[in-house]
């Protein structure tokens, strides 16, 4: 475009001169599109003024120059000295026009050093606008939508519903044609992908193609809207908007669990919860009268923002509130309110005060700023999950079975016991019958010298640190502990809290405190376990983190002084204080439990010690005969160790002379300490009970972060320059003044805000929501800038259609499924996406919707599609996030925690369940434009890069899917190569390959077959990718070659495109 601008200034004050003559000659190669229509302020003028003028002549008083305001008609038309900025009808008299066309650079606007200058075309438009009256309109999006009558169209037969009237009218006025309806197989695939995010199965395709009912298409829509996959598909868009993730985002990017909120979203969408309710519950469900648990869970929406573990608490708390404002205003209002965080909005009529009044709604939450911990942070609520409940039921069943098996073994143990009794008597019944499972036995006899000999392994197992003094023990010699001496037994007996074990020793008190046996790390919050003497009382600990996550109990009786005492602890592996028993001389002691909250590991690298912890807890006294057993010893076994030898005594009695109690005791002793089958069943039962206990703890501990109001309202201040600690005036909660007023009865809290957002008088919410759903189904919104409906946003391509849909949506009671149905049943939606040369030239971006849209699927849909067509997909709905394949080391390279991949069915869940670490999002999805979820995203990019190609070619999930797809097709085609290829193609694209395509695919197969026949090892390697088992009955080379054909098919443009 060339521009020739000649200005002839006359002498004198230019601005005041009425004689100022301007000759403006425009030579333009491309005349403005609006040449014959009247100039529209909203469409044509406001964008120019907003971009070039409002920064200094807009709403922001502080930034305003020359006391000139151009964003309101009254101000622009008002007289300044002898003229006005805009004199209706008289461009030459208008100061605005004079200044933008001034020859003198020092007076011309915008100033020469401004980046944004006016083009000749823009100047011409401004001139015409002033000539036509220079009148202002409000910004289109801030005016209430109006339902205009359906426009007249010529090709009435094309129209299926009101949407088409608007679209066709626009096409006809632009001399463009609509496209014919797409063929049936295209429609079924398009619709299934759009509404469920999954491809149709071959049967579904065939059924639709052969469905001759006149309403076959509508029936298909109904079926898809009723599918549980519908909620998952729509939820995906909502997760982006809600910046959902499985980690805290900032700093160490710790783990969190917001999936119960995700489950709520999926459920709400599937049940077609009206959008107003969907909104109110997420913004303010906690404030509803008699809020249900689900309504509170819904408020997790505004807790999905990042949380930091480092920084200044108030600064971050304010940041979280800012995030809620940004997200809420973008998602529902399509407003970029954050611009007013630091100053008045430069372009939209949002003042800084408006911003902080809005901010106040979200500023009264009981959350803190810095939260240096893993997992969910306050405020939070417990949630129950059907999945957990189901799992618990399974355990109950298994436990009942195991109990019965144990009882069966006990019932059948009599002959085995008889044999054992004989053996014992033959071996000399005078000997005490010691229990089995001895792991460590330290007699600490004088003959051992400086060594610590273990009688189990008959080897030295440790060193005595400190002075070595032996004395008479309870049995043979003993070691004297002087408060500085201890035994270091190295890395031995690394028990977990789920292991059952028993331990103790003979002890002669010398002092009041110290560790008898301990494997514990003081420095790591006393992680480990011990038997301890505290103030003369024996006690035991089992600790993950003292006190928060630990077991502790102390005997009520002190350990006697002046004598040897046998101190012993048994533990059954249940992670409960009740699983411990403490004995003095074989007699169970009463204990006071002070901590009973163990739920995580007790493992420590620190060595096992006798006589101290690590490094505290030195002990004084004499110690002898230290023993550690696998399993929880029975009372009789402990009594035996303490020397009362009860079992031996019973054994020596003839069977007939034994009392019932003695028989029972012997039976119990035999079963619990000797009988292998019984002990095995008992161990299994304990393990099951432990697992059930863990799961119940987990289920009880399952929470979700939610919104909760503070009791005493926190004051909100305007923050100067947006700084968290620079308080200006105090402000009360309220909504932007330029929009519809709050209802008089509105409560001054989030509930009031939520209802204001959903007020039918709100010009934005319905338009913004309708537009986002349009974007989901057509690839681009009617307003392309779906996150910005302000004056800087794009204008709608079909404003009357957008308004009509917005009104329809509100009038339908915010019925989302109805809206979706309306859109997808339109002729507009059902058009073929092939484009003619003429169409391409006239409307390359398809803004006028003269053809069906065609766009690459989302990362999630591409992965889900591969899983589905290969038969790998596990289509369970809801639950915690899963960790599928990921290249090794990815997390460790940038942070300090490894990625621990899941296995089994979790590898094949839908992608919306994939674990989302914000600092390192799933790399395969990220390569296909998935966002980091650090901020609200309402419109994804859609790029096309070699990195995406590499993912689809080489990511194990796609390679495995290719193998399974090949396997499935070979099985279905009964080994016929062409049939198999055709089948795979059909599954992936919903159509059969034509002969030309078939020939190419057949060539690929033959080439690969030759390669793998020559190299069967390579074939084996390829078929070993992925965890799922392979059908080994298939010929290896054939299977591998077919897998490569499948790999090709999964990479086809058509496979990854919704068209």
């Amino acid at each position: 475009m060339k521009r020739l601008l000649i200005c002839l200034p006359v002498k004198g004050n230019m601005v005041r001169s009425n004689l100022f003559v301007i000759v403006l000659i425009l030579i333009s190669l491309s005349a403005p599109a609006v040449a014959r229509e009247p100039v529209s302020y909203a469409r044509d003028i406001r964008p120019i003024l907003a971009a070039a003028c409002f920064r200094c002549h807009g709403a922001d008083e502080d930034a305003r120059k020359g006391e000139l305001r151009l964003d309101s008609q009254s101000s622009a038309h008002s007289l300044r000295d002898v003229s006005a900025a805009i004199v209706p009808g008289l461009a030459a008299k208008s100061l605005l026009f004079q200044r933008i066309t001034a020859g003198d650079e020092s007076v011309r606007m915008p100033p020469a050093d401004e980046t944004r200058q006016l083009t000749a075309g823009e100047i011409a438009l401004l001139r015409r606008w002033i000539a036509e009256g220079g009148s202002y309109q409000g910004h289109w999006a801030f005016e209430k939508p109006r339902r205009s009558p359906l426009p007249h169209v010529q090709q009435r037969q094309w129209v299926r519903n009101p949407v088409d009237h608007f679209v066709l009218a626009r096409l006809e006025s632009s001399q463009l044609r609509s496209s014919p309806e797409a063929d049936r197989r295209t429609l079924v695939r398009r619709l299934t992908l759009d509404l469920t995010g999954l491809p149709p199965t071959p049967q579904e395709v065939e059924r639709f193609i052969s469905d001759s009912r006149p309403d076959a298409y509508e029936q298909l829509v109904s079926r898809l809207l009723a599918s549980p996959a519908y909620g998952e598909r729509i939820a995906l868009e909502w997760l982006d908007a809600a910046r959902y993730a499985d980690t805290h985002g900032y700093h160490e990017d710790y783990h969190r669990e917001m999936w119960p909120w995700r489950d709520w979203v999926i459920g709400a969408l599937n049940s077609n919860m009206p959008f107003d309710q969907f909104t109110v519950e997420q913004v303010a469900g906690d404030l509803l009268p008699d809020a249900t648990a689900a309504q509170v869970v819904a408020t997790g929406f505004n807790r999905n923002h990042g949380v930091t573990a480092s920084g200044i608490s108030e600064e971050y708390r304010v940041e979280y509130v800012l995030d809620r404002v940004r997200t809420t205003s973008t998602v529902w209002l399509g407003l970029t309110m954050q611009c007013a965080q630091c100053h008045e909005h430069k372009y939209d009529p949002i003042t800084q005060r408006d911003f902080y009044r809005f901010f106040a709604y979200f500023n009264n939450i009981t959350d803190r700023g810095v939260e240096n911990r893993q997992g969910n942070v306050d405020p939070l609520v417990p949630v129950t999950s059907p999945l957990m409940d189901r799992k618990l039921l399974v355990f109950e069943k298994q436990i009942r079975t195991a109990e019965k098996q144990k009882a069966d073994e006990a019932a059948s143990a009599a002959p085995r016991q008889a044999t054992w009794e004989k053996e014992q008597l033959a071996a000399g019944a005078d000997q005490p019958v010691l229990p089995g499972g001895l792991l460590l036995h330290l007699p600490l006899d004088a003959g051992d010298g400086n060594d610590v000999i273990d009688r189990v392994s008959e080897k030295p197992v440790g060193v005595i640190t400190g002075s070595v003094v032996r004395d008479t023990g309870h049995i043979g010699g003993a070691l004297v502990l002087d408060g500085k001496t201890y035994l270091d037994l190295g890395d031995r007996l690394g028990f977990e809290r789920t292991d059952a074990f028993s331990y103790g020793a003979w002890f002669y008190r010398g002092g009041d405190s110290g560790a008898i046996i301990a494997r514990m790390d003081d420095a790591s919050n006393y992680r480990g376990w011990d038997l301890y003497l505290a103030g003369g009382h024996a006690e035991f600990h089992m600790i993950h983190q003292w006190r928060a996550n630990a077991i502790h109990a102390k005997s009520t009786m002190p350990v006697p002084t002046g004598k040897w005492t046998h101190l012993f602890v048994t533990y059954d592996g249940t992670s409960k204080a009740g699983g411990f028993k403490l004995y003095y001389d074989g007699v169970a002691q009463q204990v006071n439990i002070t901590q009973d909250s163990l739920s995580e590991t007790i493992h420590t690298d620190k060595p096992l010690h006798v006589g101290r912890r690590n490094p505290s807890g030195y002990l004084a006294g004499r110690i002898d005969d230290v023993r550690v057993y696998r399993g929880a010893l029975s009372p009789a076994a402990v009594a035996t160790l303490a020397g009362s030898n009860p079992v031996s005594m019973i054994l020596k009695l003839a069977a007939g002379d034994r009392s019932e109690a003695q028989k029972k005791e012997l039976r119990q002793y035999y079963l619990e300490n000797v009988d292998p089958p019984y002990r095995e069943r008992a161990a299994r039962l304990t393990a099951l009970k432990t697992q059930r206990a863990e799961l119940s703890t987990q289920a009880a501990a399952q929470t979700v972060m939610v919104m909760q109001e503070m009791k005493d309202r926190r004051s909100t201040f305007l923050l100067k320059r947006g700084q968290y600690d620079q308080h200006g005036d105090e402000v009360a909660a309220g909504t932007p003044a330029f929009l519809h007023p709050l209802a008089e009865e509105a409560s001054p809290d989030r509930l009031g805000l939520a209802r204001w957002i959903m007020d039918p008088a709100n010009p934005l919410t319905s338009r913004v929501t309708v537009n986002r759903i349009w974007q989901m189904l057509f690839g681009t919104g009617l307003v392309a800038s779906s996150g910005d409906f302000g004056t800087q946003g794009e204008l709608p391509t079909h404003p009357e259609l957008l308004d009509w849909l917005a009104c329809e949506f509100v009038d339908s009671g915010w019925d989302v499924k109805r809206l979706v149905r309306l859109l997808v049943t339109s002729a507009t939606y059902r058009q073929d996406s092939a484009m003619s040369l003429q169409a391409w030239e006239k409307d390359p971006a398809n803004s006028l919707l003269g053809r069906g849209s065609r766009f690459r699927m989302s990362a999630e849909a591409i992965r889900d599609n591969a899983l589905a067509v290969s038969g790998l997909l596990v289509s369970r709905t809801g639950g915690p996030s899963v960790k599928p394949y990921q290249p090794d080391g990815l997390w460790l390279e940038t942070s300090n925690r490894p990625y621990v991949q899941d296995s089994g069915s979790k590898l094949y869940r839908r992608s919306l369940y994939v674990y989302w670490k914000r600092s390192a999002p799933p790399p395969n999805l990220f390569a296909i434009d998935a966002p980091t979820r650090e901020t609200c995203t309402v419109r994804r990019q859609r790029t096309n890069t070699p990195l995406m190609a590499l993912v689809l070619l080489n990511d194990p999930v796609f390679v495995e899917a290719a193998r399974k797809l090949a396997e499935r097709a070979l099985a279905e085609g009964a080994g016929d190569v062409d049939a198999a290829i055709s089948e795979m193609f059909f599954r992936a694209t919903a159509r059969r390959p034509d002969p030309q395509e078939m020939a190419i695919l057949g060539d690929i197969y033959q080439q690969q077959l030759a390669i793998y026949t020559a190299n069967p090892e390579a074939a084996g390697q390829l078929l070993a990718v992925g965890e799922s088992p392979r059908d080994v009955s298939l010929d290896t080379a054939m299977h591998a070659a077919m897998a490569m054909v499948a790999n090709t098919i999964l990479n086809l443009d058509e496979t990854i495109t919704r068209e």
Partner: protein
Amino acid sequence: MPDRAITRRYLLGQTAGCLGAAALAQLAGSAALGRDRRDRSAPGLPELPHFAPTAKRVIYLFQSGGPSHLDLYDPKPKLADLFGSDLPDSIRQGQRLTEMTHKQKSFPVAPSLMKFQQHGQCGAWLSETLPHIGSVADEIAIIRSTHTEAINHDPAITYINTGTQQLGKPSMGSWLSYGLGSENEDLPAYIVLISQGTGRPGGQPLFSRLWSSGFLPSNHQGVRFRSGRDPVLYLGNPPGVEGDGRRKMLEGLGRLNTIKAERSGDPEIHTRIAQYEMAFRMQSSVPDLVNLSDESEGVFELYGENARKPGTFAANCILARRLAERGVRFIQLFHRGWDQHGNLPAQIRGQCADVDQASAALIKDLKARGMLDETLVVWGGEFGRTVYAQGTLTKDNYGRDHHGRCFSVWMAGGGIKGGVQLGKTDDYGYNVVEDAVHIRDLNATILHCLGIDHERLTYPYQGLEQRLTGVEQARLLEKIIA
């Protein structure tokens, strides 16, 4: 339907004159879909560069964690006499402190244990831990007066890399990729290399956002190169798939996609075909690129023995030079482990041993190859460290907390004067007293060297013409611009 066939050749050969520029740009290799007028890729923006650049590319040696300026670049000999004395309020000036030290009862001054000496014609003072960087003192411009408002890692590193502490904005490399495009169609314009510090293993985490494209089209995001089998994620063929088999399969794929393109008329398919071709070329070119076995013994002598070990900072420096040779626009190394809250003397010696020789070697190597003139090298972290000790101060040990009020960065090469020191800090190395350089100024200067006016490289998003340097004023570092 031949009348519908809009093949690339047909359009370009017969109807180009009738097509709009946007359509042509899209056909000529656009990667982006959608209606956004700015969605374009490889070629860069037509209006760029704004003026003649002095550098074609940047190698940014980012030292993550906050290297201590007091122990590396900014000697404060007067502090020797103030050992253990409390930092005067007149110096601290109520400066906000991190949660690690704000409850500390006292703020005892910890003079550096490092000896400093002068280097080169310019006589720049550098720590004994940086002898090699000392040997290139005349090539580099040391800025001792850089400052930032952020005092914690996450916001600070996000700030310096994306121009704001808020999340969701594009990184500098993405801006450059977007603005200038790539010089090598077979490689991404923005490549990231990461190494672990041995001075403090397990340091501060890094975030994808540091090389993210934010609201810019996502093909401008930084691509991580890694050591090991797959230098680029998913680059390697699956086990059992060889180059020949892959090539044959891709040829077939290309033919099938071409058929589809003819039928649907969607030019995007041609772009996709081109991307697959590029992916295949990357499969062979990238492993060669990262394989250092063709480097001479002299190179390893220059960069040090560590350079033989893949994934080290030194090896990454050689890689950076190789990427620069191939025209990659923005090469960013992240070296972790500079967060010396405790045990600083030992840790920082380890960190310096990781990077000193290789950083200097890179300058020498680029110079020897005639590339230093056109390559801008930047060395620095997200902030500096406090003069006062965190925790216990002893004669031979101390730690330092984060400090944003001043820190040191150096630049060299394309468009930057060598042998210059810019800016001064006070006797405590706490406040800037001369030539303050905000990180915005630094970023504006980097763009300037590439021929970009930082105020004019913008992108409309959320109602604003967004730019790397944000809305506040940024000024160029005229004193070090050659």
